[in-house]
């Protein structure tokens, strides 16, 4: 279990802006993102398509350069490294990324043995026995054995494929694992299996894991902290139990109310959290709050983007109306 605050974070993303594209295509994808990851914690990163989740993951592993701010991993500012130093840092493999759709991210012509061992070979591991041992070791950590070694991704099930891509990441002994939508292509039982596996890896290896997902309910089962991204900004960041018990940002509440559920005991209904045509026009303009256009609770202050401010302890929210909107939502028709 992480002991927060006392230890320095393993990863620190410090007021990062990311712009993708050049010239008239240039688009600001991340604005002022601050994120810390401590050893041994599981952080859930949630947000919708286009909110910048994947770009944030790619920035952390050094595939994207921030326009402003910096990414510091274990004291080393990796976003400032260039050329050879950058490549050397990447090859050490301290931060590993597990991609969303293993059917597309794993080379269909390679065997499982090749896929899992590739990172080790790139790093310069030549000894065949050693390589095979490390590959089997990684597969064992994800609950697979030597029977899958000679198969290609097309010959194993969807759940097994995702475990292979986790094994590929584990083979190089990472110190931080970032999983981009690891379970969205899986059915419920396989999804829970993979999430439990990640939880076990965190417990047995003390490995911190960032899980990008839009399934809040199953994330709640294993994560310690949740970070909500909207429009390239972090709008809420706090302990899972506290945030999901009473979210302070209306977007977090909307995400929770949107999740399909067998039970119907949500504090707010979708209609209470969505803008209707009857609501007054939201403030717009370049400085307005990123969520204003979809928020039914806007006030004049929302013409300015609120900063991410602490609510209590390590729980912070970027919303001017964080104290008022719940009461306003209660007054709306369910």
């Amino acid at each position, binding site marked *: 279990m992480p002991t927060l605050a006392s230890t320095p974070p393993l990863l620190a993303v410090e007021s990062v802006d990311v712009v993708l594209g050049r010239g008239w295509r240039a688009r600001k994808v991340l604005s002022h993102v601050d994120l810390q990851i401590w050893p041994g914690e599981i952080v859930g990163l949630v947000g*919708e*398509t*286009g909110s910048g989740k994947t770009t944030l993951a790619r920035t952390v592993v050094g595939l994207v350069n921030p326009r402003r701010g910096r990414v510091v991993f274990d004291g080393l500012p990796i976003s400032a490294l260039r050329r050879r130093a950058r490549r050397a840092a990447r090859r050490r493999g301290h931060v590993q990324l597990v991609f969303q759709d293993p059917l597309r991210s794993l080379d269909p012509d390679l065997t499982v043995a090749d896929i899992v061992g590739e990172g080790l070979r790139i790093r310069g591991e030549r000894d065949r026995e050693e390589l095979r041992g490390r590959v089997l070791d990684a597969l064992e950590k994800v609950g697979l054995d030597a029977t899958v070694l000679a198969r290609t991704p097309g010959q194993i*099930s*969807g759940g097994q494929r995702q475990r292979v891509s986790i094994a590929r990441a584990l083979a190089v002994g990472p110190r931080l694992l970032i999983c981009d939508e690891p379970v969205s292509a899986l*059915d*419920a*039982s*396989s*999804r*829970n*299996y993979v*999430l*439990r596996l990640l*939880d076990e890896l965190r417990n047995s290896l003390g490995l911190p894991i960032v899980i990008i997902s*839009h*399934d*809040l*309910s*199953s994330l*709640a*089962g*294993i994560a310690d902290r949740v970070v909500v991204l909207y429009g390239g900004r972090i709008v809420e960041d706090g302990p*899972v*139990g506290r945030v*999901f*018990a009473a979210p302070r940002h209306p977007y977090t509440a*909307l*995400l*929770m*109310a*949107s*999740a*399909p*559920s*067998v*039970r*119907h*005991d*949500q504090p707010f209904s*979708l209609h209470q959290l969505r803008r209707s045509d009857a609501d007054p026009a939201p403030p717009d303009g370049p400085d307005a709050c990123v969520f204003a256009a979809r928020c039914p609770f806007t006030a004049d202050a929302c013409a300015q983007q609120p900063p991410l401010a602490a609510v209590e302890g390590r729980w912070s929210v970027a919303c001017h109306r964080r104290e008022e909107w719940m009461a306003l939502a209660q007054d709306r028709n369910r």
Partner: protein
Amino acid sequence: MVIDNRSPLPDVVTAGAGAGVSQGPRPGAGEVLRIDDLHVTVHDGAATAVRGISLRVQAGEIVGLVGESGSGKTLTCRAALGVLPPGCAIEQGTVSFAGHDVTALSQRDWERVHGSHMGAVFQDPASYLNPTITVGHQLTEVLRVKRRLARRAARRRATELFGAVGLREPERVFHQIPAELSGGMLQRVMIAIAVSCDPQLLVADEPTTALDVTIQAEVIELLRQLRDQRGMAVLFVSHDLALITELCDRVVVFYAGEVVESGPAAEITERPRHPYTQALLRVASVGDFGRRELEVIAGQPPQVGANIAGCRFAERCPVAVPACRTGSIPSVAVGDEHDVRCLRAEDARNVDQLVAR
């Protein structure tokens, strides 16, 4: 917006059935889809993936098919739509649409049923749309061919439809190509095309799997609204039991090519009788946002087409007895419209209680 004047069934369907039914079903009445003892073979007959499925869909009803991947729910839908993938064939059983046997319709006859009587939306909307043509054009094409609308009328109807499926600025969307629209907007376009000729049945196969949860909730709401306004029946497929129970009136649970339980959605969630349904409920997102042990269903489903004596779930079942592994397991009624294919369903109201704690 209400679109009326349903066309009667095409002559060909009526003639094919020979039943002398000349009028189409009225909205809100009658059985739209009836599947009896359907067997579908895959790999050119090498294996039977769907083994004796029977199900009914009434007009204005939303029926959900739920099960793991490979359980045969998609093949059943495709058989109902007459669009089985290559190598697959209906080996046995019948599919009736609005009282007419459509099991052996020719390709030509199917073309008259598709769109006008049955609509379909699938998981990945982008791959069903032409990337180089505006979505407006793709919808007007359907209206002009199927409905014989004039250019201008088709265009007006298309914008109305885009508005009806909740696309903001339908006029603008009309002139956009698929790449300019988001996944949620594309799925709305697909739904607009699917319902453009006012079908009696909409088949929706995992239509929200690729979408964000907030968009998913909106699409689910749209489907419910279309049913309410048009009396359209919906056959909805998903592996997410939570989603199914939110939307559907009736739930059909598939396991390894068979229906193991079917019943009203509330019955299924509150009094599931099949151990597999109970397992699905435990792994589903029940709406719990607390820290908890995430459950899994132990074991693997049998290989597609495997011949197994007795219950196909027995291998993974926590309460299986020797009798479960012999003979065929009949489906029995355990409540109002609630059927279960399990020998132990009568022994215990809740199989959870049977499992030693």
